[in-house]
């Protein structure tokens, strides 16, 4: 039990990951899919940030009296991944706008129906 409680951050990560992943797979609305994808990515950001944390560690600044500090590298990595995530979301939403202009709908089923009628 204590083990589960001690690693609560990882449980949050797993929960968010599954919610996001499920949303991507199950929703037919193209915007909701992107939202799910965002949650899925965010969970990974949290995972990286958790990894970098050192118990009792301070921010990684060299100063008198502070020895243990958290690993800044995962945080830097995740800044890059956040930028990538923002770009992906922007591109995804731009595509949704174009799809709506072309099909007049953002529901997957509706779009499939229109494609098949050709």
């Amino acid at each position, binding site marked *: 039990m204590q083990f589960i409680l001690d690693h609560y951050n990882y449980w949050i990560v797993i929960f968010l990951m599954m919610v996001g992943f499920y949303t*991507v797979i199950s929703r037919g609305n193209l915007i909701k899919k992107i939202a799910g*994808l965002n949650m*899925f990515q965010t969970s*990974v950001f949290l995972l990286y940030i958790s990894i970098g944390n050192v118990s009792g560690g301070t921010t990684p600044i060299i100063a008198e009296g502070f020895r243990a500090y958290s690993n800044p590298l995962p945080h830097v990595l995740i800044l890059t*991944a956040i930028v*990538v995530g923002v770009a992906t979301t922007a591109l995804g939403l731009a*595509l949704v706008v174009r799809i709506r202009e*072309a099909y007049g709908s953002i529901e997957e089923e509706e779009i499939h129906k229109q494609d098949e009628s050709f």
Partner: protein
Amino acid sequence: MIESHISLLLVVIPLLAAPVTALLPGVRLPWLTALLVSWVCFALAIWQFALVMDGSVISYELGGWAPPWGIEYRIDIVNAFVALIVAGMAAITLPYALRSVEQEIPKHQIPLFYSMFLLCMDGLLGITLTGDIFNLFVFLEISSLSSYTLISMGRQRRALTAAYQYLIMGTIGATFLLIGIGLIYAETGTLNMADLSNRLPAVFSHHTVHTAFAFIVVGVALKLAMFPLHLWLPNAYTYAPSAITVFLAATATKVAVYVMLRVVFTVFSTGFTSDTPTDDMFLLLGVLGVLVASFYAIYQGDAKRLLAYSSVAQIGYILLGIGFASALGVTAAVVHIFNHALMKGALFMAVGALVYRIGSSHITQFSGVGRQMPWTFGALVLGGLSLIGVPGTAGFISKWYLVLAAIEQQAWLIAAVILVGSLLAVVYVWKMVEVLYFRPASDTGETYREAPLSLLVPTWLLVIANIYFGLNADLTVGAATTAVQVLGGIPQ
């Protein structure tokens, strides 16, 4: 001076040229810039390949930070070979692109198109050259985001949904890779792939490492369109502009295969994978991919979609080679990466030339056109023969090595599957040839002129390369054999 910076120049030149290209006016000027950049990159890639051909390794420290702390570009024959394929295909696709793109893409978008093309090439080159696994993820996203954009520029509106579908699946794949990278970083504290291969064996038994491996393999498998994770590929290849189909079919999945080779053999090594069902999984999915995708290809009514399914089948062959995890098998896989780029490049170019004249890639529209466009038709036939694996073509060489690898391990069933796959290829290539040549021309009385030279010359260059590398396999097999030794961890 240049020699020591080749690996970085290969990434920096297209990266700097891409925004410049986007700002250039007109149609010809952006194209010319992209063409020049791709040719310079091709020359650099050849030079780089010549430097590491003997099996040596070049290490380039970015910003002077020594590895494993700084980002390292680590060039050996494996990635120099793949970089050569990427730069070479870009250099040969761009002359083809000029006329094809003018017809398919609105004029005001053309500078943006070439800008994205350069970014896509840049991402693919970056993936191959970098020795840092997180850097690899970033380049993977650069190439992916630009290829989503490029695919969405297709003429039909279905290009948009195809790009969207690819964006969702591609991002899931890349995020899986990111999770895996995070977990192995947590275990080892390093991101440098050469350093990882030293540190990972100590923690091979940890569950975290197994989980990380699973995430990375599934993530990369999504990008390389391993059956049954290939669902994004047929639509993406069918609706993308012709030039982009050529480029992506020849390079994008190949680069993902390279990442798989690196991860499985260099980073994790067979010492790890032999305790997991990895090899069996590759063999099983490879066999299924070859059979199922080839069957699907036979029933397609659209020539581009037919070739796209055939690509999934060809990926199956490469996976079989990786699954054998023997020197011969991986040699076959590396050779097939090169040969498949040549044959699919030629075939998609020939179909693109048909689309250029006819305006549709539906096979029913091709009736009798083969006799009106003999050069395009000839390229399609020769490319098709190479795809089938007829002796004297490049396709034969890779299949020959693959069958040898199967026989070496006494995997008779898999050897049989490879042959059945070739027979199925005969069926779907014949399907196109039959309509193009033996059906009477359509009643509408429309006749089509031969495709313009700027489309024919690149197509035929690739066709000739198919035959050249079918008759003289010294370069490809020699490079692949050295590559297998350099990759490490493969029993000789």
